[in-house]
């Protein structure tokens, strides 16, 4: 049983909040979703562990989009973004457990 609670960035450690922006920027810049129909919305969730060096371990697709091409495009984005930025010194744990939610929103025609 997994409980899920949304927390805004304001409640997160500021060092981590900034780190998340770096990770988000890097992966977003490397993500090219495939062409999809106008107005299509689709997404895939990927989880991973980030080591202190920024290397990625334990990569897994949590929730497939049902579209292998979209899933692959997310994995490619992650591969192109590795290593991710090193973990911030103020974050003390050895690894950071992270879920990435890739969401594609096609523009309405």
């Amino acid at each position, binding site marked *: 049983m997994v409980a899920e609670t*949304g927390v805004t960035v304001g409640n997160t450690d500021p060092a981590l909040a900034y780190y*998340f922006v770096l990770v988000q920027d890097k992966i977003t810049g490397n993500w090219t979703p495939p062409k999809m129909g106008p107005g299509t919305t689709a997404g895939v969730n990927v989880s991973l562990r980030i080591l202190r060096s920024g290397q990625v371990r334990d990569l897994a697709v949590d929730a497939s989009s049902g579209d292998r091409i979209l899933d692959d495009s997310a994995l490619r984005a992650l591969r192109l973004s590795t290593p991710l930025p090193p973990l911030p010194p103020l974050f003390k744990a050895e690894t950071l457990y992270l879920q990435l939610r890739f969401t594609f929103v096609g523009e309405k025609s």
Partner: protein
Amino acid sequence: MRSLRGAHRGVWLLTLAAVLVPLSAWSAEEKFTIDIYKKEAQKIAIAIVGFPSFRFGVKGEDLGTQAGGILVDDLKNAGIFDVIEPSFLPFEATQVGVGQERGIMAALNSLKVQAVVVGKLSSRGNELFLEGQLFEVARGERLSAKRYVGDQRTLRTMVHRLTDEIVFRLTGEKGTASSRIAHVSSVDGAKEIYVMDYDGHNPVLITGNRSINLSPRWSPDGKKIAYTSYRDQNPDLFVVNLESGRRQKVSSSPGLNIAPAWSPDGEWLAFSMSNDRGTNLFLSRADGTGLRPLTLGPHINVSPSFSPNGRQVVFNSDRGGTPQIYVMDVEGTNVRRLTFGVGEYSVSPRWSPRGDKVAFVGRLHGSFDILLISPDGTGVLQLTSNSGNNEEPSWSSDGRHIVFTSTRNGRRDLYIMNADGSNQRRLTKNGRDNYLADWSP
């Protein structure tokens, strides 16, 4: 396809959210969540197949694999493609031969790949052949079939040509993979002019006089380079013909003869000369005849760059107190200031090949950065930030890219970025200072 609209109703699009997820009762490890959000893709999805291993030359290097790698780099550098790596294809890409593309079209189409290149190398004696065919996937239509002849040394050039053919067939625009970049490199205390491929390979020495050589500028036909040289002690203006190697001194008045710019028709050079009173812009024919002034006065007027239609010149002047960017008609009339309140001062203007922007360098918060401004003085956009000093922008001929000098890694090196500031990457890594780049037509 599962829609996330329902699952994540109203949640965090374009925002950053952290979600606390206790894994289980015995683990307190936090699981954070980051949203990666994109709208419609703009790039052309392209796959590269073929390019099987092909060993050639005395060392038996695998030129086939090399050629495929160069093509991938070229297409990524073009900035308009999403290049699908072979590992994401449902077949062994190197096993697909020229002429066997029919068998992969359905698979590529289902992957939403829009174009595919099939290529291979072959040889006869010392001659090397590069064959490349381009297909539009959805209709299975062949858009181009080309064969390039060269040798081992020209492999990169052959692949660059194929890239430009692909770009032209898919976009209707001339590619820039075959373009070159002139620049200054410090060598043993001297500053020499080199020309290299657009990707930093194959540097060729152009000056070699062990003096100071600056401000190389390609002629619009790409056959000549104008530059300033201290070869004969005074900073004189030269033009070198790259085909014949002939050098001509076109201006050598006592004082400065610097910072040339070619008119788009290749007939005229604008440059600066100095005297006791000031440094002013002049216009002369490319052989130095027909000299006439463009500016007059006690100020410093330098760094001219023509508009693509040849009717206007953007330049740098300190007539208002600080160095700022100005525009005038090519007759020297209708002078107006372009930059107001963009940093402490603004220098090094370069008009874009499409005419819609001027790239320049602004001093902002103590460091130099590259910005864009529209020729009407609106729409200022900062392209570089927080990365040392960034100076001396020069446009690629398609207006999609800018080469510039940056000190972000210590010494001065050349970098390239897309014209919106994205995808900044280092070009020179030879351990010297590299700067003052000019991108060929």
